[in-house]
């Protein structure tokens, strides 16, 4: 069985924790690394900047029709990570970014559960047609997780992902709305047995 997780609207405390997680070298090493200023990189917002800003800055990030950001919570109501859906409405597709910040929970399928939650939201309420992920070569667990959930390798591009002044290959994996139900059902079957 996969662990139970909940996707919720982020709070300021969640974003404070995100800042702490991203500053952990073990965490940012599997994420986007650090920028030229030595600060950890993140997608779509800088936690410290959002926390320092007012409600306008907050709303700009967390009330955006083109990007849905969720906090990931465990069944013990502990904040464990963050998931994002960056939506391109004309194409009816979204890119998923998912980070489990709690290192002690890595490799325990919390990422898989959160990914299923994000896909359910993308193909359900949002009515999207395609969801994709871009996995750099150094994130082997992320690659395995996406394939395990049923993402299809759509392409592999050489030296497209820069981290800490080094270029890495990245793999684009996609999942279409009509592929998802069968693969989700299969995944749940294997999780039960």
């Amino acid at each position, binding site marked *: 069985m996969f662990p139970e997780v909940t996707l919720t609207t982020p709070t300021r405390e969640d974003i404070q924790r995100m800042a702490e997680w991203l500053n952990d070298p073990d965490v940012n090493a599997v994420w986007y690394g650090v920028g030229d200023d030595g600060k950890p990189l993140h997608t779509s917002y800088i936690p410290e900047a959002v926390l320092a800003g007012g409600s306008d800055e907050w709303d700009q990030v967390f009330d955006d029709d083109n990007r849905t950001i969720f906090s990931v919570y465990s069944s013990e109501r502990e904040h464990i990570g963050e998931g994002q859906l960056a939506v391109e409405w*004309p*194409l*009816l*597709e979204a890119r998923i970014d998912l980070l489990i910040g709690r290192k002690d929970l890595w490799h325990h399928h919390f990422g898989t559960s959160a990914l299923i939650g994000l896909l359910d939201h993308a193909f359900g309420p949002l009515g999207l*047609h*395609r969801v*994709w992920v871009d996995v750099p070569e150094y994130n082997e667990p992320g690659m395995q997780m996406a394939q395990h959930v049923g993402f*299809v*390798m*759509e*392409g*592999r*591009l*050489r030296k497209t992902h820069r981290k800490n002044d080094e270029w890495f290959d990245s793999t*684009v994996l*996609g999942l*279409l*709305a*009509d592929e998802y139900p*069968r693969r989700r059902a*299969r995944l749940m079957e294997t999780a039960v047995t």
Partner: protein
Amino acid sequence: MPVITINGPIGCGAVTIGQMVAEQMKLNFVDRLFFTEAARIVGTPVGTLIAKEQRVDRFRDRLGRFVQTMLERSAMSGVSGEPYFGRGIENLPPETYMDLTGEGSGVAQKLDDKTFIEAMKKVANDLHQQGNAVIIGRGANQILADASHTLHVGLLAPMEVRVQTLMDREHFEREEAEIHVEELERAREDFIYKFWKVRPNEAWHYHMMLNMGKMNPKIAAEVICHAAGDLTS
């Protein structure tokens, strides 16, 4: 700057072999990404393009569309009566009957052919210009038929091999896999014929054809890498 196109019926191993070749030769690997890039150019969901390639017009689908259209027309004109074959059928315009023969406006027709093919050409030509890529299917071998430094590989495999591949990969039951293989191959042939007026399994469209019933993917990848070596010299 080699570009390698690999084409074959579903389940013949083109994706596996393509990944191996890309890995060995340190090339970009482009499979469905071809369509997602084309979709981005056109500004339409990728499913619209996939439907163009994999359009399988089963009789029951055509009948379903026919009935649905008829009911919609009937509702619009305020005609009531027997829900399936009642009054209103005589008022249907001829294109509704064309739907029934597979020539009408299905999902795949929502994107006009010219826009579709122009987007496909742009993606293929951009990839060729950048070089260093393995491209799986999507008529890339036709678009780049006479392009320089390009190797076109065709694959064949017996039905049994293709069915088994699909059963393993998609967890289909045998009967379901057989139907899928047959229908998608028919759709592939129709797609290639419609846009390039050629049959995809004819050998003269390729530098070489490999029978995947007679060799494993690893050997096939080595053969392709060896042949592609000439393109880099």
